[in-house]
């Protein structure tokens, strides 16, 4: 079985490009050119140079000794939190800004939930001198204030999405509408492995540097390229897709996904798409999605803005349906507890999104000699206010 996108952008029955005709020229231009552009020598050279000198890659693969002792297995942390701007998101925005330049675009739009992707986009736009407009749900603007300030300082315009649940889904709708209104000069930098083909595959390829590095780093540390498990949190699924990518065809590597259960899967306030979703169409992609029987997309909930999305990337729908990946979900409380534990055992305060991945230890027991790599997708600076409120730190 293939776990990669076919030439029409399908992962099994998921994926494709369900876009209105207004978007066809832009999406088709990208589709017909992305692979060719991406694998040009000059593109690869620029991409890797920036990842090294600007982002600070390779990100360390760190053996978490105290966390390992606590949970009785060998835990390695892939330190995407140490990237410039504080999360994995920048791997993708570096790739896409170079792509936008090759396509001759001068104006960049993006959606953001937690603000990490917005910051990563505003950053590369500053780097390349391009105009940047970031759509962000009004609710998220309030709960991720530090990132809003960062985007503004970087010269981006942050436009509030005022419709629907006023979170990530709605910010994505607004960005798509902007692209319809500005079809000529604008490139839309999608922030996760979602959207119409070729976005999920393109974003995944840019993020695949994560698993590429894990392989040789693990070889250095353990004398083997393959871990027993790779664990990642899933919003749209870009850090997960990048962390899994080079292990997907190695069936002995266990793939573990952790979604946001919010207040509990059955609570009606959740974002655990694989548990609550049915196949449908969201943002141009056929995938699992939370919806009513009538096909209206429902409002998700998670304490973490970056996981607050009612769909999931098509690769992950396929990994779920085919049984290739094990899916878990962590509640707000479990993720917050896991974040506190990581802070106090390893001195690393994770993003709340990332805390969900670390909640795996509350759900699954590993064997003593299991090597478990966790994608530490981002740092927790942006979430300090939420942590302060939750743990009464002030």
């Amino acid at each position, binding site marked *: 079985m293939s776990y990669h996108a076919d030439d029409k952008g399908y992962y099994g029955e998921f994926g494709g490009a369900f876009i209105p*005709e207004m978007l*066809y020229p832009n999406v088709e231009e990208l589709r017909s050119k992305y692979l060719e552009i991406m694998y040009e020598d000059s593109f690869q050279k620029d991409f890797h140079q920036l990842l090294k000198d600007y982002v600070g890659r390779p990100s360390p693969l760190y053996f978490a000794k105290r966390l390992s002792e606590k949970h009785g297995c060998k835990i390695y942390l892939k330190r995407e939190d140490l990237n410039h701007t504080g999360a994995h998101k920048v791997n993708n925005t570096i790739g896409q800004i170079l792509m936008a330049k090759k396509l001759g675009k001068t104006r960049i739009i993006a959606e953001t939930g937690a603000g990490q992707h917005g910051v990563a986009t505003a950053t590369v736009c500053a780097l390349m001198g391009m105009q940047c407009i970031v759509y962000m749900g009004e609710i998220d603007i309030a709960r991720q204030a530090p990132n809003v300030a960062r985007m503004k300082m970087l010269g981006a315009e942050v436009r509030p999405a005022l*419709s629907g649940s006023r979170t990530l889904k709605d910010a994505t709708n607004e960005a798509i*509408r902007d692209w*319809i209104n*500005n*079809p000529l000069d604008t490139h839309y930098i999608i922030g996760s492995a979602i959207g119409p083909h070729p976005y999920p595959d393109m974003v995944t390829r840019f993020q695949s540097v994560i698993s590429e590095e894990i392989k040789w780093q693990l070889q250095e540390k353990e004398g083997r390229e393959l871990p027993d498990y790779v664990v990642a949190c899933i919003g749209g699924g870009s850090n997960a897709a990048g962390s899994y990518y080079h292990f997907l065809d190695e069936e002995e590597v266990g793939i573990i996904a952790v979604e946001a259960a919010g207040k509990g899967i059955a609570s009606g306030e959740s974002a655990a798409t694989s548990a609550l979703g049915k196949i*449908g*169409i969201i943002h141009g992609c056929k995938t699992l999605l939370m919806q009513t029987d*009538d096909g209206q997309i429902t409002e998700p909930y998670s304490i973490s803005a970056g996981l607050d999305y009612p769909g999931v990337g098509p690769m992950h729908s396929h990994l779920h349906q085919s049984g290739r990946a094990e899916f878990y979900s962590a509640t707000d409380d479990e993720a917050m507890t896991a974040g506190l534990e990581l802070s106090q055992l390893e001195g690393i305060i994770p993003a709340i999104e990332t805390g969900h991945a670390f909640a795996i230890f509350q759900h699954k027991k590993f064997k003593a000699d299991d090597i478990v790599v966790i994608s530490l997708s981002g740092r927790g600076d942006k979430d300090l206010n939420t942590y302060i409120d939750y743990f009464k730190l002030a």
Partner: protein
Amino acid sequence: MTNRINQKLQENGKLLSIYFTAGYPSLNDTVHIIQDLEKCGVDMIEIGLPFSDPLADGPTIQKSSTAALGNGMTTERLFEQLAGIRETVSIPLIVMGYFNPMLQYGVDAFCKKCHEIGIDGLIMPDLPLNVYRSEYEEIFKKYGLINVFLITPQTSEERIRIIDEASDGFIYMVSSASVTGSKEGFGNTQTEYFERIATMNLKNPQIVGFGIKDADTFEAATKNAKGAIIGSAFIKHLTTNGISQIEAFVKSIRN
């Protein structure tokens, strides 16, 4: 029997088509609005099945969709409301919506229902041409439904020809690069685009939509095209005036 859309397209004169969101302003206004529009001489009606995330729509239609869903509109309810519509209404009726609600209802079941009601065509902006052709065309045809495709100023000539080939009613010509309801009048770019398409001698007539809001824009749009569709401007009229003054709106467009 020939499809009512095709019959209507044979008639002389320019066609005025009106879009409204079913379930707005009130849940049970649907039939009244349709009957009134026909009485006022409107040629064709697009019945909007509201969707939670209408990507191709501007704020006006978004708001009416959210309100309609809040009023309790569902696919099943719309079909119930429309059940007897052919006893009183004879102009072509088109259901316009997004693909996900149709997919959840079941594409075959959805088309079958439309056929039973007497719906003549569908406009599903996010059901792309290639997917339609490979997976759903037979179902649409089986139930005698015309699928209407969109083109925009950015659509290449080559693709317009493909779309023309795949169409058997009319082509929905999106007036400018925009979501619904967002442009102010028409400028030179639009006029050139309208003329460019007119000279292509397409097999399907074109009906222009997006940005038509008054007599001037209607006239400009139909100079070359067979007709024009009004959506947001009509919804705004309903928002301000309710459903009792539909005639005044239609008269303001075309006498």
